[in-house]
């Protein structure tokens, strides 16, 4: 845990100092909402359409951070530094999952009120939607950290990361959309309809966290 904390604190410190990911993610999300607002020509969205707009925006905003997740490790020798130390390399994976989760949570704290304002979402739907997004974040962070590690040492990483990541997150997006639809339904959230989808999301998160933890040492090998 000490190694995980050390790497996570380092990542957050560098992000706070350079602001390379979060402002871009927030700007992307807000701009996308503006485009949907005028593209769909709707002042109110609910149900599956609202779920789609929200989740697709979060997914593509996440891609911006996932592409940059290992830039410092690749360009400044972080991979070597961590492999030279007497630590479990999987701690790097967990720290990156933690960092990406935090970036996404901060993004959503900014983006969700903007979404609600643009598309007339009921205020009472927001807490449950934030809870759902926490599960989505965990899945995106676990899958993103894995794929980003694979892409980090490839010259075609900017292309490779989305091409590998997007098919992998299809089950995550299906479950998230299934859960979000009743939460963003017209007339207020229906929590009972979201339960099984939330369980499915939690299972996806668990599987990718365990897979990442198990294979990470091999991914770092040359």
């Amino acid at each position: 845990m000490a190694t995980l904390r050390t790497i996570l604190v380092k990542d957050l410190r560098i992000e706070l100092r350079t602001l390379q990911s979060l402002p871009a993610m927030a700007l992307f999300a807000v701009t996308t909402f503006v485009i949907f607002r005028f593209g769909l020509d709707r002042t109110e969205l609910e149900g599956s359409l609202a779920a789609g707009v929200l989740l697709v925006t979060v997914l593509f905003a996440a891609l911006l951070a996932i592409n940059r997740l290992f830039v410092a490790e690749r360009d400044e020798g972080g991979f070597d530094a961590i492999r030279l130390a007497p630590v479990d390399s999987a701690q790097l994976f967990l720290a990156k999952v933690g960092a990406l989760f935090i970036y996404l949570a901060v993004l959503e704290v900014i983006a969700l009120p903007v979404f609600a304002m643009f598309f007339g979402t009921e205020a009472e739907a927001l807490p449950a939607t934030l809870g759902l997004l926490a599960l989505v974040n965990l899945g995106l962070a676990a899958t993103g950290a894995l794929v980003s590690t694979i892409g980090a040492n490839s010259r075609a990483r900017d292309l490779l990361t989305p091409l590998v990541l997007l098919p992998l997150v299809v089950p995550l997006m299906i479950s998230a959309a299934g859960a979000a639809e009743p939460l963003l339904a017209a007339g207020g959230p229906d929590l009972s309809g979201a339960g099984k989808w939330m369980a499915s999301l939690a299972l996806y998160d668990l599987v990718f966290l365990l897979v990442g933890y198990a294979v990470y040492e091999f991914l770092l090998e040359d």
Partner: protein
Amino acid sequence: MPPPVVEVLSLRRDFGDESVLREVSLRLDQGQTLVVLGPNGAGKSTLLRMLATLLRPTAGELRVLGAELPRRAYEARGRIGFLGHAPLLYRDLTLIEALRFHAELHRVAAAEERIRDLTEAVGLGRRRDQLVRTLSAGQLQRAAVCRCVLHGPELLLLDEPGSHLDPAGQATIRPLIGPGDGTTRVIVTHDVEGGLAEADRVLALDAQGSVAYEGPVAGFTPADARVLYAGAPR
């Protein structure tokens, strides 16, 4: 007789279809210094990265600090100080933050005191709060030396340790990575005379990555080195 610190037998490393190191064998005992010489592309840095557990051999046997690599790399990690071409310091951290990061990874006891002593020893005491990205190449090399020895390694793997350093800079790092304290060292260098002066053993690699000489320093002269470099393709 204590086991060797480094033991290499018929080591080979390929990148794709190309072999960059062929049939390298060597042995290095506790406290000895091995100097690795050879023209560019001879596989010197590749050898160093394999000894550092960062690269897997394609074939052959490799044992470092008693650990068979790559299978038991975790036994050697944390006991090796590696100074490569990159300083392995995050550019957007201050020097003290970057060194603290490494100290935490290596669980260095009394880290703050150790960092203070090392940075002062290499003349970077007043640069501790400066971002790594703002350091000059020479300062960065001295900072990398601090990072390399921070955890008190038993084996030092040094790739051109004097690069970017003026004579005064080289003098500041010498007490930390020089022959003084009996640490076992593998040094890759193009400074033939300087390297041979510090060496107990020499490994000379030709341009194809094969061993041209491996043995005691007494059996290798600067004239041999000139022949070695003259044989390199231009």
